[in-house]
C-alpha cells in the first residue's frame, strides 16, 4: 500500500510539473501582454513607458526563459507576485481558497445527504412512479444552464420574497453572527447542489441496482433477512464504492468549475480567481491557481483509488496501475 501511494504521488508530481509547462505554453499562445491592456486603459502611457514597463516586468524575455525563472523560484517556495491583486500569489489565493472550500464542503455534504438516500430509494423501486420522479428531478438539476438557475434563485428568494441576500459574502454584506452569515451561503450552495446532485443520485442508483443483482444478495434474501437489512447492510457497502470514487473526483471539478455560480452570486472563489487571472494576463496567479486545481483532482483521484482498494477486498493495488 505504501509503495503504491508513493508511486502515485511521484507520478502526480510529474504530471503537475509537465502540466505547468503545458499551461504556461498555452497561456503564451494567448495574445497580448498586460502592458498592452495597460496602454489601452490609460492614454497617458507613452511608447517609452511601455518599453520601460515591459522590461520591468520581464515581459520582453522569451517564454521558455520566463517559465524557467518561474520554475526555479517556485521550487524554492516563491510562487511569484500577482499583478492583478498587487500581492504575492499565495496571499491572493488564500481568501479565495477559503471561500471555495466552504462552498465545496457545504454543497458536497448536502449533495450526499440528499443524493444517497434518493438513489437508494429509486434503486429499490425500479420503474415505479417514485423512480421516475427521482430520475426526472435528478436530470432536471443537471440540465439547467447554470446561470439561469442562479438568476432564478436570486429573483425568487432575494428580489421577490426578500428572504435571502442577492449574492455576496457575509463579510461584504456586513453580516454578523452565525445565522446572518449563513444566509449568504444558502443560495450559492443551493445552486451548486441542484446542479450536481443529479449525477450523484443517478450514480448511486445505478450502482445500487448493479449490486442488488449480485448473487450474494439473492442468498441474503433467501436466508430470510428483511429487505431493509439486505439493502442497507449488505448491498450499500458495496454499492458505495464506485460512488465514493466519483465524489472524490468531483473535488477538482467543483473547485474551478463553480465560476458561473461565483459570478452570478458575487462570491469571490477560486473559479472566478482563475478566470480573472487568465483573462487579465496574470501568468503567475493563473498558473498557480490552475496547478492547484489539477493537484486537487489528482489528490482526489488518489484518495478515490485508495478508498476503492480498501473497501473492496478483491481489488489489488497492482491491478490499479493499469
Amino acid at each position: 500500500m505504501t509503495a503504491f501511494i508513493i508511486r502515485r504521488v511521484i507520478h502526480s508530481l510529474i504530471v503537475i510539473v509537465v502540466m505547468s509547462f503545458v499551461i504556461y505554453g498555452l497561456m503564451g499562445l494567448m495574445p497580448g501582454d498586460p502592458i498592452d491592456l495597460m496602454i489601452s486603459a490609460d492614454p497617458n502611457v507613452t511608447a517609452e513607458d511601455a518599453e520601460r514597463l515591459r522590461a520591468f516586468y520581464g515581459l520582453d524575455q522569451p517564454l521558455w526563459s520566463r517559465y524557467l525563472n518561474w520554475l526555479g523560484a517556485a521550487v524554492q517556495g516563491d510562487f511569484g507576485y500577482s499583478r492583478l491583486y498587487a500581492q504575492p500569489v499565495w496571499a491572493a489565493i488564500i481568501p479565495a481558497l477559503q471561500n471555495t472550500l466552504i462552498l465545496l464542503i457545504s454543497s458536497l455534504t448536502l449533495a450526499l445527504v440528499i443524493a444517497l438516500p434518493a438513489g437508494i430509494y429509486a434503486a429499490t423501486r425500479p420503474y415505479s412512479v417514485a423512480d421516475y420522479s427521482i430520475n426526472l428531478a435528478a436530470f432536471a438539476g443537471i440540465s439547467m444552464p447554470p446561470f439561469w438557475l442562479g438568476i432564478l434563485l436570486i429573483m425568487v428568494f432575494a428580489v421577490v420574497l426578500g428572504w435571502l441576500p442577492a449574492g455576496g459574502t457575509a463579510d461584504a454584506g456586513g453580516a454578523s453572527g452565525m445565522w446572518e452569515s449563513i444566509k449568504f451561503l444558502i443560495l450559492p450552495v443551493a445552486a451548486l447542489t441542484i446542479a450536481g446532485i443529479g449525477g450523484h443520485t443517478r450514480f448511486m442508483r445505478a450502482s445500487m441496482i448493479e449490486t442488488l443483482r449480485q448473487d450474494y444478495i439473492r442468498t441474503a434474501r433467501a436466508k430470510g433477512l428483511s429487505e431493509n437489512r439486505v439493502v442497507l447492510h449488505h448491498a450499500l457497502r458495496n454499492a458505495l464504492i464506485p460512488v465514493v470514487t466519483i465524489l472524490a473526483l468531483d473535488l477538482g471539478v467543483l473547485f474551478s468549475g463553480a465560476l458561473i455560480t461565483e459570478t452570478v452570486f458575487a462570491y469571490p472563489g477560486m473559479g472566478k480567481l482563475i478566470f480573472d487571472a487568465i483573462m487579465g494576463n496574470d501568468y503567475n496567479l493563473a498558473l498557480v491557481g490552475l496547478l492547484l486545481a489539477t493537484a486537487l483532482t489528482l489528490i482526489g483521484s488518489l484518495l478515490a483509488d485508495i478508498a476503492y482498494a480498501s473497501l473492496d477486498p478483491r481489488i489489488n493495488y497492482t491491478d490499479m496501475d493499469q
Partner: protein
Amino acid sequence: MSLVRVFVMSFAVTMVSMLNIGTANAKSELVIGITQYPSTFHPNIDSMLAKSYVHGLTRRPVTAMSADWETVCLLCTKLPTLENGDAVLEMTPDGKEGIAVTYKLHAEAVWGDGVPVTSDDVIFTWEVGKHPKSGVSAAEGYRRILKIDRVNDKTFTFHIDRRTFDYNNISTLGILPAHIDRKNFEVPEAYKIKTAFDTDPMNPGLFMGPYRMTVAKPGSHMVFERNEKWWGKAPAFEKITMRVIENTSTLEANILSGGIDMISGELGLNVDQAVAFEKRHGDKFQIIFKPGLIYEHIDLMLDNPILQDVRVRQALLFSIDRDAISERLFGGKQPVAHTSINPLDWIYADDIPKYPFDMTKADALLNAAGWSKKVKGIRVNDKDETLRFDIMTTAGNRTRELVQQVLQSQWKAAGIDVRINNEPARVFFGETVTKRKFDSLAMFAWISSPESVPRTTLHSDSIPSEENNWGGQNYTGYVNPEMDALLEQIELELDRDKRKALWHRLQTIYATDLPALPLYFRANSFIMPKWLTGVRPTGHQFPTTLWVEDWDVAK
C-alpha cells in the same frame, strides 16, 4: 381561521422587515455597488477607474476638475496662473521655453496619522515618478518637471521644461506620504512590491481625505470610515461600504432587494440597462444620466485601399442613423458625437461638417467612388470586388454588440456588406488593435480628459509599428501634416482665444477627413436612493467621490 390570519400577518411583517435589510441603516451608512475592484491601491501605478473612484473618498489631488469643468484647487489654496503671478515664464537651463509654477498646500492638510502634508511629500512623489524602475505607468508628467524648489513646508515651485496650456493642472500626480513610503523606496526596483499602499493598505497615514479605508477584501468589498484627522467639511456618513458585484444583473438584484443603496455611475450599469431599469423602477429611485468623456467610435484602417477614399468613409457615416440609435437604444441619454471632442468641453465647435442620416448622400458618394453596381444588393466596383468590411469589437460587451448589429443592418441597406468579428478584450486590445491587425473597422472607446490634446491618436509620429515597439495610439494610421502642426501648436498655445481657433480647425479637419467614425459619448447612469442628495455627476474622469463631503441625507 384567525390563526391563519395571524400567521399570514406575522409572515408578512417579517418579510417586509427583512426587505429593509439594507435600507434600515441608510442614514448613517451608505452601501455603494461597483463592478470592479482596484488591482493596486498605489495612486500612480496602473491607472484604473475603480481606483480613482475609491481614492475620491480617501485622498485628494492637488488640483482637479470640478463638475462645472473648471480646474480647481483641492489640496492647494490658490490655483497658480500667469495672471496672478504664481506661474512665471522662464528659460530652462538648456535654453528651452519653460515655466515655473508655485503651489501652496492647504495649511491644515494632514495625513490620517496626523503628520502634515508637506512639500517633502511632493518631492518624494516626483522622485518615485521619474525613476525608471519604480513601476509608475505614465512617467511623462514627472519627467517634464526639471526641478522642484522647496520654498517652505507648504510651498513648492515646479520648474517645467515646456509651456503647455495646462501648466497648472497636476491632477495626475498622486501625492505619496514620504514619511511612510520612503523606506520602501530604498531599493527602487522593489518599490512596486513593497509600497505601503499594497502591503499595508489600511494605514491611516496613506489618506488625507474625508475617509480612511478600514477593510479591503480583494474581489469582494471595501469599507471606509470617517477620517478623524480630515481637515475639510465633515462628511455626513459615518461609514461607506463599497461592494464589488461584477455581474450587472446581480447588481440590479441587489439594489432592488436592498442589499446596496446605490449603484455607482462611474462603475455601474450600461446605459441601455439603466434605461430599461428606469422604465420599470424609475419611481422608486433617483436616476441621473450624465454623458461623459468616453468617446465610442470606430477606428478605420486607413491602410485598407477601399477606406483610403474619403468618399467611402463619409458614405459609411451618412448611411447610419446614429440619432435613431441614440434615441431608441439609449433613450436619448447618449448624445451623438461629431468628433472626439465632447460638447461639454469649452473648446467644442459646433459649426463643423456633420453627418445626419442621409441615404441619398451616401448613395451619391459611393457611386462617385466607383461602387455603383450592385450584385445581390451589395455594391461592387468595376474590378468586381465587393464592398465588404469587417467590424470588430470586444466580445461580451452587450452594448457594443447591439450597436454592431444595428449598424450591420443599416449598412446592408446601403449595399455595404459588413461582417461582425469579435474577440475577447485581451485579444482585441492586446494584439489586434495595438498592432494594427484589424482589417477595416474597429469599434471601441477612448477615455479622454477635458481639453486633452489627441496627439497620440492623430499625430503621424504615433503610428504603432514594429520599429517603435508598437508605441503610440494612432491605430488608423492617419497622416496629415496640417493636423500634426495643429496638435503641436495647441499644446503650447497659452492664449485661450487663439487655442479655441486652433481647436476649431482641428475639429473641422477631423470631421472632413474622418480617420474614425464618431458614434456617441457614453453616459454614466447613477442610480441612487431618493433620500441621497449632493451627488454631482461630473461627466469627466474625476469621480463624484471627490466631493463626498457634500453628500447628505435629504431632510
